[in-house]
């Protein structure tokens, strides 16, 4: 299939605005009479509020209002209504809003915070999801049984578990009894920050006639609108949410974060806009954080390396409120077996309340947590069996005809993880770089069938030593410097979007008076380039040159069509489908209008190159320009009306998971991929340098190669941070010890490895021009790929992230290698 615009690396629609500084973000907007808000945040992780006195703050210069949670009408939430937008009588994490000062300028609001007096009665604090799941743990939501929640959410009343998903297939008891080898380990992925460069911000005006207008840095204006309507008792037509350019989202601006809080605040100063932009320190505790999961993983394997069974328990940190983490639990549960066919499965994923800031969506959510376990486990199994890590993956890989963990059968158009693995292996130097570990069976391996080889379960801060691989052949590259060792590792992945079964995406295409079109969508441009890709899809579908296609850059719930939210790597796929439907409707309207004017049957007409023409006599045509505002004949009589096409898409045939077995049709499409890393470890300092990160992804048809590469590069480097340097540190009182970008190190330009993105393009039947999602997938498997490479380089096995220099030195010391 040849395309005109699809497949081209066209320049971004928003590029010039962004290189000139003209692009407008929320904090760049000033409205007449605008006030500024600052938030007093709890310094206690778990406490009852016993006193709150704002009278002195009210008297400070410039202060217009001090707003508290008193009088809040109801709890809010999209999945579980378990939170108020600010504390009412109890705080559940350090950073929870307790009071908000509204003043004429930000400095006045900030200074007045110090005059607010709060007294607390402390409660016991727990920040670890596993500890919080134990009987006797401090109860963070004692009344969770009465919370309103969507169907398909299964809490355990009387505990901190707000959602539990079980996925069961076959009979794991038999599988583990008959296994040649059982490998069992515990893996930890700490909480991380998204570190969007643009802090969360919003401006809200509560109108004196009732209703609210909000500018928000949000991936989910329709979710924000819904929650605000619920909170303030307003109809949707009275709440307008407008999203200008968003300076990075990565899931952290999905669902709702600061917006209901600001709506409540604005309610207290009707008629005046109020701006709230978080400081960088508030970004650590005033919105959502990501990940935070303990995964206890057992694999049963046959002698020839086939996965017979997997038993896994996932404890996901939900933080103080679980509303945002429900779908993460689901994602972790259904993807815990990775891109492999496993006949016998028993997975339980728990979402657990703790006293940390709430956990929300974070690039790939649910998937990186369990792939960290699954893909480390595959390398360990391969070593125990004396197999190559490549071979064991290829043997077990999902593919056409195979069945995934929730019982869905893969079709040939779903993609090829085997090809992705082979491409990464080839890019890293070939299969000889991934030979079986030379001395795999040192230790107490159980060789008789039925025997169980339980690894010592490391506490999530340890590392086990195993024999070091001896690189050989073409790959035995000498390290650059004495004292440095190199290794290569791979990890494979499968990811599907986790979404409501009726996740909506709409598109409106208006034929403009010059014969071009204006496309309106509800999808947010937050850097991923979706508006450019969607313009390419529209141009292709309408056979128009790209410069005749515009996409309205601001999403506005008053005008833009519905969009569930811009998350889950589903925009190109779902909104792209909506655009194709809208384009088809517009073309249909064009040909029907032209049929009347040209006196040619509509089915003989085609829309091509800005014209509608007779297929049989192409010299008979009208330009789209002639039709845009209504065609008039020589007498001035209008023969057609203005033309607008609309398209609305929901995924087909999805259903809830079975509550007992977790089986069901919840995933609409999958993207398979493999990622590989080459690292150099300084054995004297423990420092890890990532030399190369290679990703091969079966994304279906690539609509825009440069943008697609950009997604994979960015995701891979984000995940490289999670692999070797990122992790939020909580102290015993639940305070974050590293809230700044000085103490929380993210990869910088000096840390960059050589990045490579490779595409397998198996066309996706359900996607526009065969495309499927790719935005998050590059973040899923980099940590295990890097840890597997560190293992090859040093012989050290790591089970908890990040793999820092300190952990490597400690592990070496434990093994007896002088540092």
């Amino acid at each position, binding site marked *: 299939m040849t395309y005109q615009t699809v497949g*081209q690396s066209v320049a971004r629609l928003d*590029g010039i*605005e*962004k*290189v000139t500084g003209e692009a407008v973000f929320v904090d760049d907007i000033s409205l007449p009479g605008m006030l500024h808000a600052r938030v007093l945040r709890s310094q206690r992780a778990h406490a009852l509020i016993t006193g709150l006195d704002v009278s002195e703050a009210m008297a400070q210069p410039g202060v217009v209002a001090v707003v508290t949670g008193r009088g809040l009408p109801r709890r809010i939430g999209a999945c579980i209504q378990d939170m108020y937008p600010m504390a009412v009588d109890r705080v559940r994490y350090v950073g929870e809003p307790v009071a908000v000062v509204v003043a004429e300028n930000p400095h006045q609001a900030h200074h007045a915070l110090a005059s607010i007096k709060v007294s607390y009665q402390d409660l016991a604090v727990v920040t670890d999801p596993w500890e919080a799941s134990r009987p006797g743990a401090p109860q963070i939501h004692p009344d969770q049984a009465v919370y309103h929640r969507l169907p398909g959410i299964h809490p355990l009343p009387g505990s901190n578990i707000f959602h539990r998903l079980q996925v069961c297939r076959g009979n794991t008891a038999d599988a583990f009894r008959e296994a040649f080898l059982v490998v069992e380990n515990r893996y930890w992925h700490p909480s991380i920050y998204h570190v969007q460069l643009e802090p969360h911000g919003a401006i809200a005006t509560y109108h004196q006639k009732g209703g609210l207008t909000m500018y928000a840095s949000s991936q989910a204006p329709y979710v924000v609108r819904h929650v605000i309507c619920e909170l303030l008792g307003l109809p949707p037509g009275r709440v307008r949410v407008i999203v200008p350019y968003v300076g990075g989202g990565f899931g952290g601006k999905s669902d709702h974060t600061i917006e209901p809080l600001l709506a409540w605040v604005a309610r207290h100063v009707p008629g005046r806009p109020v701006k709230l932009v978080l400081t*960088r320190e508030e970004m650590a505790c005033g919105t959502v954080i990501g990940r935070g999961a303990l995964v206890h993983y057992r694999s049963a394997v046959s002698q020839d390396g086939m996965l017979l069974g997997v038993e896994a328990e996932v404890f996901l940190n939900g933080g103080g409120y679980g509303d945002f983490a429900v779908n993460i639990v689901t994602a972790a549960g259904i993807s815990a077996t990775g891109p492999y066919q496993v006949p016998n499965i028993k997975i339980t994923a728990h979402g657990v309340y703790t006293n940390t800031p709430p956990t929300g969506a974070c690039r790939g959510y649910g998937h990186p947590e369990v792939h960290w376990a699954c893909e480390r486990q595959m390398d360990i199994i391969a070593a125990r069996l004396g197999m190559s890590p490549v071979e064991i993956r290829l043997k077990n890989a999902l593919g056409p005809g195979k069945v995934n963990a929730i019982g869905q059968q893969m079709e040939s158009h779903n993609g090829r993880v085997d090809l992705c693995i082979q491409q990464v292996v080839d890019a890293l130097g070939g299969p000889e770089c991934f030979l079986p570990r030379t001395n795999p069976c040192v230790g107490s391996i159980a060789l008789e069938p039925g025997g169980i080889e339980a690894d010592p379960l490391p506490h999530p801060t340890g590392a086990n030593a195993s024999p070091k691989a001896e690189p050989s052949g073409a790959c035995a590259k000498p390290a650059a410097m004495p004292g440095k060792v190199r290794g290569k590792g791979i990890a494979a992945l499968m990811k599907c979007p986790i979404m409501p079964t009726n996740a909506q995406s709409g598109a409106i295409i208006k034929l403009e008076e010059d014969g071009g079109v204006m496309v309106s969508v509800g999808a947010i441009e937050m*850097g991923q380039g979706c508006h450019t890709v969607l313009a390419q899809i529209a141009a292709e579908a309408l056979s128009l040159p790209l410069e005749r296609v515009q996409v309205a850059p601001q999403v506005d719930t008053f005008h833009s069509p519905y969009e569930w939210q811009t998350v889950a790597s589903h925009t190109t796929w779902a909104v792209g489908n909506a655009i194709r439907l809208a384009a088809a409707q517009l073309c249909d309207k064009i040909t029907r209008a032209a049929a009347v004017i040209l006196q040619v049957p509509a089915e003989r007409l085609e829309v091509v190159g800005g014209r509608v023409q007779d297929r049989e006599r192409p010299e008979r045509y009208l330009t789209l320009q002639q039709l845009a505002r209504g065609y008039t004949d020589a007498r001035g009589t209008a023969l057609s009306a203005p033309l607008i096409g609309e398209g609305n898409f929901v995924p087909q045939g999805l259903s809830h998971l079975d509550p007992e077995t977790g089986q069901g049709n919840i995933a609409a499409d999958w993207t398979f991929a493999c990622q590989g890393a080459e690292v150099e470890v300084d054995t004297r300092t423990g420092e890890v340098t990532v030399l190369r990160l290679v990703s091969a992804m079966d994304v279906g048809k690539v609509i825009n190669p440069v943008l697609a590469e950009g997604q994979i*590069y960015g995701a891979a480097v984000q995940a490289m941070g999670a692999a070797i340097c990122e992790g939020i540190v909580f102290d015993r009182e639940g305070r974050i010890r590293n809230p700044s*970008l*000085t103490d929380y190190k993210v990869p910088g330009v000096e840390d960059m490895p050589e990045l490579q993105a490779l595409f397998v393009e198996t066309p996706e039947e359900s996607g526009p021009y065969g495309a499927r999602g790719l935005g998050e997938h590059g973040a899923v498997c980099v940590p295990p790929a890097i840890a597997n490479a560190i293992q090859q380089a040093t012989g050290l096995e790591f089970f908890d992230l990040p793999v820092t220099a300190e952990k490597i030195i400690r592990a070496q010391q434990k093994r007896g290698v002088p540092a």
Partner: protein
Amino acid sequence: MNYTITLKVNGRTVQRDVPAHLTLLEFIRSGLQLTGTKHGCGNGECGACTVIMDGKAVRACLILAVEANGCAVETIEGLVESPLAPFAGELPGAVTGTGHSHPEINGASPVGEGVGAGLHPIQRAFLAKGAVQCGFCTPGMIMAAKALYDRNPNPDRAAVVEALGGHLCRCTGYQPIIDAVLAVQTE
């Protein structure tokens, strides 16, 4: 306490009364309404607020407005070379590469032929190399690159990495940004 400061911003002299605590970033964004310079952290950790002051790339959030008294400040808004001639000349994607293996932006310009021809070569290089995603770090990155080129017209990769050191980008993985800054000199 207010002080009167006089400085040049993008070639134009401005005089204002400012409070002592006002940062140069607040002055530029709120006082002058030049919002292209971004506030990412306020602590000098991210580089999004980088402007050029007397030839040096500086973090505007770490400098008080009064310290800029008598200085020449360049912001992202001052970079466009010929803002009155936007509809002539080459496409924004016309910068050539430096032998890197990554695909160039090619094909049609979605914004129309010739638009953006007045852009500074660094701005064009950022577009051509796919170095822009969310755009929030972009003005700071471009100003750091401009300061580099102003003092070193032929930087190598190490010089580019040093000049961009401490500038955070969470979208691109930096590689396209490095490629873009290196591509400028081939113009």
